[in-house]
């Protein structure tokens, strides 16, 4: 599903990623861990062509991301559900509209929007805030809206950058159960996280990045990436 071939990303002389080789199969559940500034968000940004790789090839499904013409980028991004580390909610749209927007993009019918959006909101436990604007929400609530938006179109790949960073342990575990459910339906999930406890308990594939390099890739790993 996702494949990195010798991918490097340089910012000036600073290598955010260097020579990464990686393959994630369809339906996998992968944790991406590593210290602050290791290159995890860079990995995601490359995958979504938010930034261009300095070197190497990236594939997502049938698409070769690194070769994709600009006008095809929306096609790429619609295949992927994303939870951003900084949420990226539309500030002038309500919670409901923010989630509905992801469906508007793919020209879903108003009827199906009216049916599906409330379901997604209640799934992440934020139904009562449907008519609030993002700035009226707590950080954790915003994060849950971002999660609802990312799953609304049943994407084939779901990428989440610290989806539990602003959540208390209980809510975090609820979100994790949700992700597992989605994963069971066949969605590939890549989750960037610092939540040691979650990684340790889930016993899923763990990819460790440090200073732009993959330093380990354990099929049933734990968080402690530096022995």
């Amino acid at each position, binding site marked *: 599903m996702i494949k990195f071939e010798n991918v490097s990303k340089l910012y000036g002389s600073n290598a955010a990623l260097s020579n990464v080789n990686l393959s994630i199969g369809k339906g996998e559940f992968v944790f991406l861990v590593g210290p602050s500034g290791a290159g995890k968000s860079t990995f995601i940004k490359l995958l979504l062509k*938010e930034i261009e790789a300095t070197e190497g090839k990236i594939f997502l499904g049938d698409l070769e991301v690194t070769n994709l013409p600009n006008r095809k980028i*929306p096609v790429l*991004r619609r295949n992927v559900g994303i939870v951003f580390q900084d949420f*990226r909610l539309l500030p002038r749209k309500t919670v409901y509209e923010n989630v509905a927007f992801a469906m*508007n*993009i793919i020209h879903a019918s108003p009827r199906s929007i009216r049916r599906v959006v409330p379901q997604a909101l209640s799934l992440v436990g934020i139904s009562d805030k449907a008519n609030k604007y993002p700035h009226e929400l707590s950080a954790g609530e915003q994060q849950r809206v971002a999660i609802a938006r990312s799953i609304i179109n049943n994407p084939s790949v779901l990428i989440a950058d610290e989806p539990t960073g602003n959540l208390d342990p209980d809510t975090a575990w609820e979100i994790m159960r949700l992700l597992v459910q989605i994963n069971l339906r066949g969605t590939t999930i890549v989750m960037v996280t610092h939540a040691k406890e979650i990684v340790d308990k889930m016993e899923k594939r763990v990819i460790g990045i440090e200073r732009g390099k993959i330093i380990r890739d354990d099929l049933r790993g734990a968080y402690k990436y530096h022995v």
Partner: protein
Amino acid sequence: MFRASAYSVKQACKQLIRNRNMCTASIFSITSMLLILGLFFILIVNINLLAQTAQSQFDTIQIYLEDDVGEEAIYEMQNEMETIYGVKEVTYIDKEEALVIMKKRWGDNGYLLDGLESNPFPNSLEIKVNKLEDADAVVSRIKGMDGIEDIKYYQSVVEKLLNITNFIQLAGMVLIVILIIISIVIVANTVKLTVAAREKEIGIMKYIGATNWFIRGPFFVEGIIIGIIGSGVSVAIIYFFYKKIIEAFSTQAFVMFSIGLVPHEFLINHLIWIFISLGVGIGSLGSILSMRKFLDT
């Protein structure tokens, strides 16, 4: 397609209402610029009219005839002249009439002419031409005729007037073009800043997978709406004030001075279409062009 358009219009209306302040700013700018444009348009149209009026008072050619030319011959000449290309009408003024006219022209000093022994004025023909430019040609055709003592026409005055009207027309066009460019720059800047304030929003939409056209749609419609409102408001303001001015003028001393003003219906009928197309063009193009930067990648 229909769903997309409906979405754009709906979103545009929502945006307009939610970002009232910014839209008011854009509308203000467009309205202001169109007002200035309208002001110039009115000035130029009226100066033009004024020049044309003034010009029409000089579009005559005076032909003084020798005293021995009989009435018969004069009528013949008159008929002949009327066939010349560019001539509008030919009037016969005999010497008695000429004296009366001259007395009138002298006004209160006319009594001075009563002391004349004999009528010093010759018989004359007066030619009105269709277009001032033709006057020269007409004169050269007439020159060859018999029985003509002298030909007078305000050649230099006419030429100067022609120069002035041409200059005013040219200057007017140049000014209007400059103003349109300035308006576009100002409005485009306004829209650019409006869009810059939404840079983050546009970025987010793209990250989620919205196509450029999907993002542009509502902005485009918004630009059109802003353009229509802006031009509507400015046409209304201009209509109102110009009507007031015309009313004021028609009761004032200015009528005596025979300063004619272009009627407001004519002006408005023209302005409204020019303005709406300008407004919509500036509004929609402005919003699209200024979004280019954010939609590049």
